[in-house]
């Protein structure tokens, strides 16, 4: 395939790879796919290196046309998929290798569960890298612009063989209450003892004030034991940062390198991808990770 022509982007779509770690010295965050496991899987299905750039969708709605024939795979929560070619429309499955003939149109509907979908194309999306990555960092304003109708995404040359397996059995994104494991700290001592109990007592609702930077949650308030100003310090993905509203924000892929509000607890890395699939209105519960100190 030579290119993917964007006909519609859905509510928000951008190019993402595994981001640009190691550039904190410039004040630049890692960014990259919000659900890294789903990006890796999509790339494996089309025989790309795991970190190749792909399209990340939000609430589906992507509509693209293949310029030249080739292979794609959609993972995560891409929504119901159809391929239109030669006047015929056929449904295709997620987590499957899909061949798109030249001129074929792939449409993503609205997912029933989950939030973010990944469309990998064999050869990878080959937009110009910025500071070593093709990811759009929405907080820093680095990388390619978010997708708009009319944009043509160039596709790179395929590198390896197509894998022998063309379907990956993965669990569908979760609907209902999402349980995320946390480890208290690094600043749990800035909060009252009751605050940690309130956090794990929950539940919290994901608000619509959520994006790639962070997910704002509504639920029990987390009272501070100390009210002095925290000097800004480094932040990690999965941190539950508590601003003066006393309601936690779960930091996602585009979080700033440093932040000035205390972090009461951090979601374990293995659950950070699942957190990135939580949609506004969905309910989240936090549980202390067994074995963690």
């Amino acid at each position, binding site marked *: 395939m030579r290119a993917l022509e964007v006909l519609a982007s859905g509510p928000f779509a951008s190019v993402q790879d595994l981001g640009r770690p190691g550039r904190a010295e*410039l004040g630049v965050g890692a960014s990259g796919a919000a659900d890294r496991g789903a990006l890796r899987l999509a790339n494996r299905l089309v025989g790309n290196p795991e970190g190749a750039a792909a399209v990340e969708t939000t609430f589906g709605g992507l509509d693209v046309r293949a310029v030249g024939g080739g292979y794609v795979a959609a993972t995560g929560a891409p929504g119901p998929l159809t391929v239109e070619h030669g006047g015929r429309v056929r449904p295709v499955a997620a987590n499957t290798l899909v061949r798109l003939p030249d001129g074929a149109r792939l449409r993503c509907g609205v997912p029933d569960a989950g939030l973010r979908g990944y469309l990998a194309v064999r050869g990878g999306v080959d937009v110009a890298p910025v500071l070593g990555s093709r990811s759009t960092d929405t907080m820093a304003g680095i990388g390619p612009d978010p997708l708009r109708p009319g944009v043509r995404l160039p596709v790179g040359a395929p590198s390896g063989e197509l894998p022998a397996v063309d379907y990956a059995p993965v669990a569908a994104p979760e609907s209902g209450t999402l349980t995320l494991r946390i*480890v208290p700290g690094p600043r749990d001592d800035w909060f009252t003892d009751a605050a940690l109990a309130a956090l794990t007592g929950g539940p919290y609702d994901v608000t619509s004030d959520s994006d790639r930077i962070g997910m704002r949650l509504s639920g029990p308030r987390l009272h501070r034991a100390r009210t002095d100003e925290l000097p*800004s310090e480094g932040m*990690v993905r999965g941190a539950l940062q508590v601003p003066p509203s006393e309601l936690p924000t779960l930091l996602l892929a585009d979080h*700033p390198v*440093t932040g000035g509000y205390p972090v009461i607890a951090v979601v374990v890395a293995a659950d950070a991808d699942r957190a990135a699939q939580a949609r506004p209105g969905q309910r989240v519960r936090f549980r202390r990770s067994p074995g963690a100190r």
Partner: protein
Amino acid sequence: MSVRVLRCADSGVLVEVGGLGRVLALYAALRADPPDGVTDLVPAARTLLLSLDPARADPDAVARAVRAAAGRAGTEAAPGEVFADAPPVRIPVAYDGADLDDVAAHTGLTPREVVAAHTGTPWTVAFCGFSPGFGYLAGGDPCLRVPRRAESRTRVPAGAVALAGEFSGVYPRESPGGWQLVGRTEVATWDLDRDPPALLRPGVRVRFEEAG
């Protein structure tokens, strides 16, 4: 030096070091030979964060390596000792910031004396953060220490020159911000067409000058 090592689940180790000079000394000790699985070192005013690749890093081993490095590290370092000496940068400033009078009131100086203090001593970038290309400039005249504004502004223009705590900074692009604004500069501190894009990288020495 003694440090307090805090965990960010399996994604990071946050080291409480105390002051900026000690942060930079520990940063220098770890930067040359980072522990396995560390993807980023994020120095800040009082702390150093080691971001981890959870698939490769053992947080307990990283914590041990941090304590060992703290034992080896000197007690204090200046940005100029940690980072390669970069050529000094001159930044012309129009000192007409909205908070200049508040800064004067807080420091007990006149607005003219604030300008003289800001331009009188060279500053050095200690670390970056907040947003790409936002350098935390340290080493300036200690009489300019002021708190952040009680209320953050939702929009601070690009090029705003500001003070907070022991630091001065230049906003690289329009963003929210809570620092005290003393002036503005035309100098672009973040430009992706430049390599490196950040003008104010750690170790860069800065001289502010009153724009004529």
